[in-house]
């Protein structure tokens, strides 16, 4: 984890973040935008909790949805009990219930999963995830079976006039918990446990030889991470007013992994970026095309191959160049590369959409884009899009070489200046 000591800058950044949270629904107004913002807020907490495991602790988990999902289930039952009047508890503090539930399961499963590290840990987490998912379907009494458990968030006494009926109120609830969680999880990275989690990630053997039980470090890190996952689960429960087996599914676990990775695992801010991009893909894109999961998969694989540090790494790499005021030299190569990429993307989208149209039973095979229509059953559009894709890829190859050469020259200069 890069730790750059900031001074006044620290307050400016946190203040700016708080401001963004406050102002976002005013900038992105409208029901659809608000839905996305709420889901982004929840996903940010979830992805940050996941990165406590992967980025900070070196633990790759394929079953993190277990903690958020079980947190969600306990929250939904608590909410229903509040609704029935069994006890009074402010809905505002429901994420605490989810968090504690997540933490409890973190203790339970964490004991088993953290006995091993590395690839074995990853597979064990997958196994636990599958087991919990199967169990949830086996006990419809508590988990509601296929339909899940539904609830009503407008229950109990209104808090300062807030009922959480309107979406905007839900947004500010999510935003507050999100901001607090970000602060808390960042603070945790600055503690002895947080530092030793990094040490265990980098060199578990050495960590043992300076007096630390690596298994215990990983266990504690997982327990803390599952608390925040539970918080995210509770917020999801409040937002959607329904919790089902899908909340503990391997798909959810895969989703948070993809989101975190796309954003950037080695950086604290990475998962925040990744969560925003991921929700955008899933919510916005899925409205436009049936192929959104394919596009997400391709994007993810491309990131793994070409940018394993995620979007955050690409952005942060520019900072030394910006400081040296030489970003302008890269403007043209970047523009060329972006243009080539867009061309290739257009060709790819054309082909993918046409394939989807053909494979769908009873759908029209005519594709309408920018006022032009292409019939997927005829040959010319295929050749056309294939050519566009090929041209884009070739152009991208040249453009990326140009970027690489320009980048290398700048890096050499920067190194020479430093020496």
């Amino acid at each position: 984890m890069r730790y750059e000591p900031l001074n006044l800058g620290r307050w400016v950044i946190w203040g700016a973040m708080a401001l963004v949270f406050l102002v976002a629904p005013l900038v992105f107004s409208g029901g659809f935008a608000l839905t996305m913002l709420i889901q982004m807020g929840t996903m940010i907490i979830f992805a940050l909790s996941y990165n406590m495991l992967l980025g900070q602790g070196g633990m790759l988990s394929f079953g993190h949805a277990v903690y958020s999902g079980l947190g969600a289930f306990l929250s939904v039952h608590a909410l229903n009990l509040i609704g029935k009047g069994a006890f009074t508890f402010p809905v505002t503090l429901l994420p605490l219930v989810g968090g504690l539930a997540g933490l409890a399961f973190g203790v339970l499963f964490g004991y088993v999963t953290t006995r091993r590290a590395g690839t074995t840990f990853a597979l064990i987490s997958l196994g636990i995830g599958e087991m919990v998912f199967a169990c949830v379907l086996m006990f419809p009494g508590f988990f509601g079976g296929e339909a899940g458990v539904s609830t009503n968030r407008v229950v109990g006494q209104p808090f300062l006039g807030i009922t959480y009926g309107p979406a905007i109120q839900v947004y500010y609830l999510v935003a507050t918990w999100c901001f607090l969680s970000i602060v808390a999880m960042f603070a945790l990275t600055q503690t002895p446990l947080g530092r030793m989690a990094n040490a265990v990630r980098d060199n578990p053997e050495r960590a043992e030889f300076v007096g630390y039980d690596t298994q215990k470090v990983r266990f504690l890190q997982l327990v803390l991470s599952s608390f925040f996952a539970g918080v995210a689960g509770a917020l999801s429960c409040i937002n959607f007013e329904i919790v089902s087996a899908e909340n503990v599914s391997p798909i959810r676990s895969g989703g948070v992994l993809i989101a975190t990775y796309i954003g950037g695992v080695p950086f604290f801010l990475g998962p925040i970026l990744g969560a925003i991009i991921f929700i955008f893909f899933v919510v916005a894109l899925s409205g436009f095309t049936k192929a959104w999961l394919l596009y997400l998969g391709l994007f993810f694989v491309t990131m793994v191959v070409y940018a394993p540090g995620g979007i955050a790494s690409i952005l942060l790499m520019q900072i030394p160049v910006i400081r040296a005021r030489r970003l302008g030299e890269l403007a043209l190569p970047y523009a060329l590369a972006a243009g080539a990429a867009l061309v290739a993307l257009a060709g790819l989208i054309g082909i993918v959409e046409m394939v989807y149209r053909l494979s769908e039973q009873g759908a029209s095979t005519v594709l309408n884009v920018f006022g032009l229509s292409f019939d997927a059953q005829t040959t010319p559009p295929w050749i056309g899009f294939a050519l566009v894709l090929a041209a884009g890829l070739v152009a991208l190859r040249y453009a990326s070489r140009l970027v690489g050469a320009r980048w290398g020259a700048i890096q050499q200069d920067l190194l020479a200046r430093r020496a």
Partner: protein
Amino acid sequence: MEFFLVQTLNGISYGLLLFMLSSGLTLVFSLMGVLNFAHASFYMLGAYFAYQISTKIGFWPALVVAPVLVGAIGMLIERWGLRQVHKHGHVAELLFTFGLAYLIEEAVHLVWGRSAVDYRVPPDLDGPLFTIFTSQYPIYRGFMMLVSVAMLVSVWLALTRTRIGLVIQAALTHPQTVEALGHNVPRVFMLVFGGGTALAGLAGVIGGNAFVTEPGMAASVGPIIFVIVVVGGMGSLAGAFIASLLIGCMQTFAVALDWNLVGGIKMSQLAPVLPYLLMVLLLIFRPTGLMGTREG
């Protein structure tokens, strides 16, 4: 008695299929250090290819052609995909194969749709093989066992008796030395990866029509294979063998036994969870697996 025999035979044939899958995974992991998360996806591709070929031409050509196709795809993926990711470390390799699993499943959705396809046992293999007391044991199950055993024996022979096999065995522990001796280790890696995927594809050819061929089949059998690998001990073929048979029989018996357990749950409902329970128990009492050798 009859029930016990029939279910044991079923369990063994299922276990052998699982071993075909887990052995390919273990070999690739032992050699390249990368766990192929998409291994079960190649199993699925084998089944779908076999379905396509058997409806157009016939089952017997499919038995040969489909695994070869899958192996070829595996080699291409290794050469153009996995090899690029190798320099980023094991986590990146695992995540690459993870993304690959998504992509393969989407591709299958695209081409063959979201519901199961009617991949059937060929008529000449459809029928009773022999009769145990009053039950008839199907020919196809016997065929499955035959193919599994034949394939595993030939892989074992290829590894221990041929030159390329010896090179592979040497490269398992000392890739740089083997390369220094003039062998093309990257090509060996590509062949082994392709071999592993072809093995998975073959398992798909014979398993796809015995069980079901649908886009979710990779996601349902994949985790069980990983459990087998963990339970048997990462990197141990003997362990994978024992774990495969153990889990194969355990699941077969659980599904067949219609016992009523506590809380209104039947044994057959518990069947999908059993391998994971076994894994959890093993982890508590014997964390390195039955015969653990290599730490992931």
